[in-house]
């Protein structure tokens, strides 16, 4: 696990408590590592879930974020959990090194009109093959009065309808990504800033990650991806993506250089907000503290890092 997991703090006095918590966590990490040698690394994944949270409780209570004395706020816990998993130590070939941010997105479903501008911007930005038959973002047209995905549809006429509501779905950059856990060769991992990436030069094409992902966010290049020469984005790989799995990277090529994601930029109604949860003043942090939100399939426990407000 990473050493750059920093809990969320609003008040400076939390720091003293935090020092104690960190040392306790280090100790637990040691226990975890020892168990890992014995059990081929399977046990630490469970052990951290069972043991690590109580160890940090003190620090979070001091941050004053929970109503229950001694309990950690959910948002602080998720932000803390959102760190590197199976990270090989250096960033994936097409990305700059991660900073100390924890990236998240908030989507306003009340504002979304289903125009699919985000989808088109994403296809262009990320060199998605025009012949590939998939997009990173799926906008789902939902029936009024229900959240049931089975009654929604992805194939609705251009423009959308005022009788329906729209739910944009893409890779949630989960804090506990079942795709990363399911990759047999560690060809996909979570970087320290929480972005889930795929190493196109390592992926064996077994497609197990597509089976384990609950959000239909991963896509296999069944054919060699074709992009017109004039439209190729030189910052994003293209040829390497043939016969491997690809997915949304929160536009790692833009966001790690101070930019925002292509979909956020393209949204005509400003329904998407993208930012850093480690920064208490970022748009996403403020939204998550002040608005009523929900997450898609939260009950599965993947801890998705995209929230919806409505």
């Amino acid at each position: 696990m990473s050493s750059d997991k920093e809990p969320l703090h609003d008040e400076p006095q939390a720091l003293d408590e935090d020092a104690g918590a960190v040392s306790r966590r280090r100790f637990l990490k040691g226990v975890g590592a020892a168990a890992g040698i014995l059990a081929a690394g399977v046990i630490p994944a469970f052990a951290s879930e069972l043991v690590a949270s109580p160890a940090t409780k003190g620090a979070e209570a001091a941050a004053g974020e929970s109503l229950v004395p001694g309990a950690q706020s959910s948002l602080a816990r998720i932000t803390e959990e959102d760190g590197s998993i199976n990270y090989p130590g250096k960033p994936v070939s097409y990305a700059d090194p991660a900073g100390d941010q924890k990236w998240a997105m908030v989507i306003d479903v009340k504002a979304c009109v289903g125009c699919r501008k985000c989808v088109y911007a994403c296809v262009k930005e990320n060199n998605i093959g025009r012949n590939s038959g998939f997009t990173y973002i799926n906008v789902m047209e939902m029936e009024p009065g229900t959240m049931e995905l089975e009654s929604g549809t992805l194939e609705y006429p251009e423009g959308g309808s005022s009788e329906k509501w729209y739910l944009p779905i893409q890779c949630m950059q989960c804090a506990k990504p079942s795709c990363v856990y399911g990759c047999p060769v560690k060809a996909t991992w979570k970087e320290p800033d929480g972005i889930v990436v795929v190493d196109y030069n390592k992926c064996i094409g077994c497609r197990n990650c597509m089976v384990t992902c609950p959000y239909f966010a991963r896509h296999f290049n069944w054919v060699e991806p074709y992009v017109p020469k004039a439209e190729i984005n030189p910052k994003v790989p293209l040829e390497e993506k043939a016969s491997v799995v690809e997915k949304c990277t929160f536009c790692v090529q833009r966001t790690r250089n101070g930019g925002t994601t292509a979909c956020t930029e393209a949204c005509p109604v400003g329904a998407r907000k993208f930012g850093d949860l480690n920064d208490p003043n970022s748009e996403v942090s403020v939204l998550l503290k002040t608005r009523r939100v929900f997450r898609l399939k939260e009950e599965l426990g993947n801890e998705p890092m995209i929230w919806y407000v409505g």
Partner: protein
Amino acid sequence: MKRFIGIEWDFGALKEASPRYWLWMSLLGVFLVLGGVAWTQLFLHGGNVINMRDNYPWGLWFVDYMYYIGLAAGGLVVYASVHLFGAKQFTALSRIAVLQAGVLTMLALLGIITDMERPWRMVWFMLTPNPTAPFLYTGSAAGGYMVLCFIDLWVLITGKGGEKLAMTMTLIALPFAIYMHTTTAFVLSMNKSRELWHSAVMVPIFLTSATASGVALLLIFAYIVQATTHIKFEPSMFRSLSTLLATVMIIDLFLLVVEILSIFWPTSSMPGHTVRMAEFFTGHYAWAFLPVFVLGFSAFFLLSRRPTRHLPAVQLTAAGMYVVAVFFKRYSLMAMGFSRNTLGQLTGLYFPSAVEVFLALGILSFGLILITLALKVLPMETSEHAHDEGDEAGHAATTPDAVVAEGSAL
């Protein structure tokens, strides 16, 4: 006769083989070549020639993987019962059973390899294995099991180490086979993203389907061997085998029924599960799922009717029906994960393309060629000196009824 690694290879028998033998071999050869052509097409054109897509990330090769891994179990159950439970009437079958298990596991692995468009990247399985991925365990278990089966076969043929080594091998192989089937079921059940797969009963149902179809195939295989070679089996062995088959079959069907009940029962039904399962009764996949029940229960009925169940024709029909039923079941099982994608969208019917079908047939004929060759060239019959080591002499005198009782005690 050529002696190599302690085995008498009877290559002379191939020269004396009948035209019928060579006709069969050349038919298999044709399918092997067609399979090779299909694989080349897959390399050249990728997704253009197959029907797998994002909605069906795994297709026919995965159906075959589950199916072959399952069939491989039967061989081991019989082989293990010879040594561990003292069911001596199966002794004559042990070599054939182990050969069947080894070859079928090889076919399962070939399915994975031919599905990968970059098989050489498999090296990462060794270099950076991910312990949380179920795929890793089933792959390595299948590889290990295949090697174990071929070592087992060698031990049985050469008689090296005698009964004691054969017993030790069984003690290793039986838990290994259960491990392989369990981890294969894990590839499905360890997915919270796929509602109909995410069930703990997947593991026991995998084991029972595997054992039932494997024993059924072994029964068919034994009849074929008896009809085409000079190897002969006791009628009591067939009776015990079909009793065992009927027992496992009904457990298998029972598990399937309780699984379906828990999906539709008013106090446990959840929309995500019921809409998906409905596809298999009234939707796109009814043709693949309903035969599982029809064939399964009919086969059980055939094997349980006292006046006719000893007839070879009845046993063969029932066994054949169950082998087919389990293939349909595997096909449905694949589709249960994918008939609606993880966003709840109907994905339509997946049916393999010609390239996928010929690739699968090529792999199958490769296995059949290996078995056909082995039956001629290798001493598959339990030979005289093997009898000297055990106490078979005593058991041969046991009355058929006692043997049947012994078989049903399993």
